[in-house]
């Protein structure tokens, strides 16, 4: 068979492009166009849209001054509570001693006031200005009746009253620290007055101080004020008691610890009585109460039953205190003094509690509410002010209390509406075991609580603290956790501090004896809740205990599950790319955990899932303009995730993207530095690709990376990529696994090669290699590749090569890469180059024709026909038909296509029509002639 020479048609791509384009017709203003926006011009519409926007400003004004959450973490330290209850009190050897402990002395398992004191002071603070108002002078203006006293009596009374001349002091604008200092000064002056035998002055100081407790301005500070002032009262009580004891001993004997009133001499009794009489005449209720309570112990000097009579009376007296906060603190003080002096007198403790319940409704009364409005304090920050006092009262009550009592109290609490506050104190004071066994009950109660009052999360916190100490019934656990988290997750302001504490607590209790091994589902649930709640991962990972918490998941499968959850949430919620080192470190750790779980037995789906998650993370990492950092991150990631192919692929894409970003930033003109950087990127890809398994993945990545390298003017690198791709082609197996099914690979290869060719067009020849060395090499590879016997793909590829070569022989190529000189400008239409090109074409054409010949058998006629037609079309499109031999070849092909009646007549007709149409173009006149030589076979 004769060898046909190839003559490519000269193309003017610009003109062709222009002629193919639709003609642009300028649109007149009024003309219809489907994409033109519909504008209904109606002048009235403006007015309507104004409404509704006026009242929108008021909604945002209700932000609370005090963050209700900030108090969550304070309160009892779970450790000390733990220590307190765990203390084995039963080790006392002598029974007698223990009996006494239970009855008259509070055991060591009772958390002392001293430990609460500090907490309250640090927790209830204020930045507002405080004032101390001391009326040390006699209340001259008060009673008009006093003026009726005889001169003598009056002066005597005034001597009692005035310890400083006209000493009405009002100290305003004190900061909290000033206030504390002042109170300390008062405490000192009380001691001084006492030491210098000015008992009346001492009493007056105490009275004035306790008067401060009736003042509830700056209410947030009240619990702390209570602590400070009761310190003074304690001092006073101690001084009085010491003084009277000293009167009892007549320099010889020492008063025994458990003396009876008969042993007390008359002088001591009289002095003691005097104190009580003096105190009984204090006009105001609150000072009278506090001062009397402070010397409660002195009742022992008078009679055996003194205290037991006094306590109930004082308890009742508190009923007269109108402000519920003031009154509950008064109760707390009484309980405290009562526990110190007579812990066996439980009755009045209970009475205090029940009385409190009766007054509970006052909190929601007008008086309190008005006060809160005036002070700008909201209910959720007001209610926790009760906690220290209530906790204390409850602690006193529940100390060694029988179960029945606790149950009764719980029932009583239940009966009250909005009992969140009570619940909270019940939970913080009662025995953990008691709470734990009823935890579902408690959850029920918590759920019923009114959200507006006491913050629910505080309730759950208290519950949680109990559960940390004692185990709830096995079956309820998960439910408890779920319920609790429902609320916790509702918190508007996630406070990492709280979460941290919770986690820390859980860790603390799960670590001993590897207890966590038994409760993975619970722990997992905790994590899920935490992450569902924290969408800001920088916050999440700055929660100190989060990673240690993760470390508890030591069983790999669970651990990976947890990691997956975290990543899912991250992918879902992370909006902005991040470079936060905290997030990166933590997530790398998480991803590494996932990655490391991959082994030979891992299912494909699982791998894909993991890879998807890791990719999601990689995509969200951005160091912005710090490209080098970004690259080194990718390097690190590669070393970490080498077992997951999709991750590597993602990394390669990312690096390519990085290179292109760099190019974009430099606007195509690389500096020395960026050029080096880009080469580094290219190198990254080059060495990463071979580690992949999927052959087409590799091929495509080679091609893609080569294109990127080319775009960044890394010519030799691009060559390397292309060469690598070419040398890889022989390895393409006949069948490949696509989604679990074996499929012939040829179509994929065809696809890839076509893509490859279009890239090769613009790849400039290497100066040291021959002309078109890449194309030649590729052709060799194609030639040697073992194609399917009955497939025409090889020929299709050759046809494509033909297209490529004709495109290459053009004076100016169809497309270029900015700043890369392709062969058109390199050779500048050099005849040698064109000859070389044509030679290649001839070889290819020979191959094609050879193949067409082999198809002259019956079963292949159809293939021959279509292949012939496609070759005809190629010649028509790319060949120069003015060349006689090529013209003749095309006519032959036309006939070949129709010879056995296999051709689709419609296609043939269309083709002919196309030729006729083309012939009308100016320099296509020769096609007319051709068309005449192409007969249409009629169906016979």
């Amino acid at each position, binding site marked *: 068979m004769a060898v046909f020479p190839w003559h490519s048609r000269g193309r003017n791509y610009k003109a062709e492009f222009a002629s193919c384009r639709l003609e642009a017709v300028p649109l007149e203003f009024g003309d219809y166009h489907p994409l033109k926006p519909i504008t209904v011009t109606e002048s009235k519409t403006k007015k309507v849209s104004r409404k509704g926007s006026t009242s929108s400003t008021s909604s945002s004004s209700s932000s609370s001054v005090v963050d209700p959450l900030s108090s969550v973490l304070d309160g009892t330290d779970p450790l000390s509570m733990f220590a307190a209850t765990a203390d084995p009190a039963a080790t006392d050897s002598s029974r007698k001693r223990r009996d006494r402990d239970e009855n008259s002395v509070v055991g060591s398992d009772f958390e002392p006031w001293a430990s609460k004191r500090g907490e309250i002071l640090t927790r209830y603070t204020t930045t507002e200005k405080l004032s101390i108002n001391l009326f040390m002078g006699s209340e001259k203006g008060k009673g008009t009746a006093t003026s009726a006293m*005889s001169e003598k009596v009056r002066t005597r009374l005034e001597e009692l009253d005035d310890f400083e001349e006209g000493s009405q002091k009002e100290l305003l604008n004190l900061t909290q620290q000033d206030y504390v200092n002042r109170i300390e000064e008062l405490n000192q002056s009380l001691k001084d007055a006492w030491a210098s035998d000015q008992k009346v002055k001492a009493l007056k100081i105490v009275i004035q101080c306790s008067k401060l407790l009736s003042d509830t301005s700056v209410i947030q500070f009240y619990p702390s004020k209570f602590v400070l002032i009761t310190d003074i009262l304690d001092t006073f009580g101690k001084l009085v008691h010491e003084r009277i004891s000293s009167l009892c001993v007549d320099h010889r004997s020492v008063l025994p610890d458990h003396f009876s009133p008969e042993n007390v001499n008359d002088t001591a009794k009289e002095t003691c009585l005097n104190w009580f009489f003096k105190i009984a*005449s204090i006009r105001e209720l609150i000072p009278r109460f506090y001062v009397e309570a402070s010397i409660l112990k002195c009742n022992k000097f008078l009679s055996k039953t003194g205290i037991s009579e006094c306590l109930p009376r004082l308890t009742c007296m508190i009923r007269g205190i109108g402000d519920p906060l003031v009154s509950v603190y008064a109760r707390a003080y009484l309980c405290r003094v009562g526990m110190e002096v007579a812990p066996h007198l439980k009755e009045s403790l209970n009475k205090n509690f029940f009385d409190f319940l009766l007054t509970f409704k006052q909190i929601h009364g007008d008086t309190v509410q008005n006060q809160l409005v005036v002070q700008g304090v909201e209910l959720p920050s007001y209610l926790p002010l009760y906690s220290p006092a209530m906790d204390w009262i409850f602690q006193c009550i529940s100390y060694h209390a029988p179960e029945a009592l606790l149950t009764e109290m719980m029932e009583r609490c239940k009966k009250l509406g909005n009992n969140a506050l009570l619940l909270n104190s019940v939970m913080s004071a009662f025995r953990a075991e008691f709470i734990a066994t009823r935890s579902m009950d408690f959850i029920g109660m918590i759920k019923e609580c009114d959200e507006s009052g006491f913050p629910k999360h505080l309730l759950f916190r208290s519950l949680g603290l109990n559960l940390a100490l004692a185990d709830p019934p096995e079956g309820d656990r998960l439910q408890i956790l779920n319920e609790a988290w429902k609320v916790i997750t509702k918190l508007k302001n996630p406070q990492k501090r709280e979460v941290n504490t919770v986690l820390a607590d859980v860790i603390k209790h799960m670590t001993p004896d590897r207890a966590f091994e038994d409760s993975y589902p619970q722990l997992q649930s905790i994590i899920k809740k935490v992450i569902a709640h924290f969408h800001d991962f920088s916050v999440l990972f700055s929660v100190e205990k989060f990673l240690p918490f993760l470390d508890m998941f030591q069983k790999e499968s669970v651990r990976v599950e947890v990691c997956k959850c975290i990543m899912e949430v991250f992918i879902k919620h992370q909006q902005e790319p991040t470079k936060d080192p905290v997030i990166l470190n933590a997530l790398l750790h998480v991803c590494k955990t996932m990655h490391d779980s991959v082994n030979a037995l891992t299912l494909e789906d699982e791998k894909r899932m993991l890879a998807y998650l890791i990719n999601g993370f990689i995509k969200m990492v951005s160091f912005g303009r710090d490209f080098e950092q970004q690259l080194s991150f990718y390097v690190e990631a590669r070393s970490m995730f080498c077992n997951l192919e999709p991750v590597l692929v993602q990394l390669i894409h990312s690096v390519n993207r990085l290179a292109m970003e760099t190019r974009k930033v430099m606007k195509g003109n690389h500096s020395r530095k960026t050029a080096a950087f880009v080469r580094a990127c290219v190198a990254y890809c080059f060495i990463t690709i071979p580690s992949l398994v999927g052959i087409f993945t590799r091929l495509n990545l080679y091609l893609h990376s080569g294109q990127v390298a080319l775009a960044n003017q890394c010519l030799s690198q691009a060559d390397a990529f292309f060469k690598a791709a070419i040398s890889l082609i022989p390895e393409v197996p006949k069948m490949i696994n696509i989604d679990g099914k074996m499929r012939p690979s040829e179509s994929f290869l065809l696809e890839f090669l076509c893509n490859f060719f279009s890239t090769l067009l613009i790849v400039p020849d290497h100066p040291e290699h021959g002309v078109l060395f890449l194309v030649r090499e590729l052709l060799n590879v194609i030639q040697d590749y073992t194609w399917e016997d009955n497939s025409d793909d090889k020929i299709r590829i050759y046809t494509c090569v033909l297209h490529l070569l004709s495109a290459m022989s053009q004076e100016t190529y169809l497309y270029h890469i900015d700043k890369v000189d392709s062969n058109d400008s390199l050779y500048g239409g050099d005849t040698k180059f064109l000859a070389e090109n044509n030679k290649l074409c001839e070889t290819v054409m020979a191959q094609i024709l050879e193949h067409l010949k082999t198809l002259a058998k019956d079963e292949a006629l159809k293939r021959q026909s279509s292949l012939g037609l496609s070759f005809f079309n190629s010649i028509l499109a790319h060949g120069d038909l003015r060349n006689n031999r090529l013209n003749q070849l095309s006519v032959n092909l036309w006939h070949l296509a129709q010879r056995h009646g296999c051709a689709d007549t419609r296609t043939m007709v269309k083709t002919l029509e196309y030729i006729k149409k083309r012939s009308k173009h100016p320099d296509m006149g020769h096609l007319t002639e051709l068309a005449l030589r192409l007969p249409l076979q009629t169906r016979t």
Partner: protein
Amino acid sequence: MGTSLDIKIKRANKVYHAGEVLSGVVVISGKDSIQHQGVSLTVEGSVNLQLSAKSVGVFEAFYNSVKPIQIINSTIEMVKPGKFPSGKTEIPFEFPLHVKGNKVLYETYHGVFVNIQPQKGKLTPSPVDFTITPETLQNVRERALLPKFLIRGHLNSTNCVITQPLTGELLVESSEAAIRSIELQLVRVETCGCAEGYARDATEIQNIQIADGDVCRSLSVPIYMVFPRLFTCPTLETTNFKVEFEVNVVVLLHPDHLITENFPLKLCRT
């Protein structure tokens, strides 16, 4: 330095009743020995009318007609003239308290008009229940302006033992206005009189707050008041003078209402 002389009575509470024996020591201390003309101890008790600055004029008419009434007067000679050694010398003494003639020994008492001494009485409990509403009040100028309220309460007894506190309960059932304070005002009413007429004077001798602020409704607040030792005595009625006591329950409402309920008391000593 000079010499000091002090009388110490044995009983710490210094309360003695008629017929009892008052005992104690006279303490004389000095650095040097002291010459003396003898030591004698006189016990003297009298009822004396004093003129109050408040009621000058009212009393002048009959002031002079009431002379101090002597109710006890006895003298004992403790030491004959001689010399006390340097240092502390204690001379014990005791003498019985006998009322002079057929007079009654009243309880010691310092009032505006009257200063008195002891007596005895019998106590029969006499509880009082009370209800205070705007309708029960007297001396109201504009009843309509008063906020509505209902306060109930009771005193366990208006016959009180002077050494025992006044007790009772008070309960605010409802009140439109917020409560500022509830106080117990102990008032002493002294009446002096003779054929020409009489003078009456009421004095607050103690004021005890039993409720501070807007107390819880329907929760009883205890009424509890210890009688001041110095300013109270058993209720006394003689031909020349009367000493009586009353207690006022004072309720202060927001913004500025003062409600008072008065209860006469009868104090006695058992």
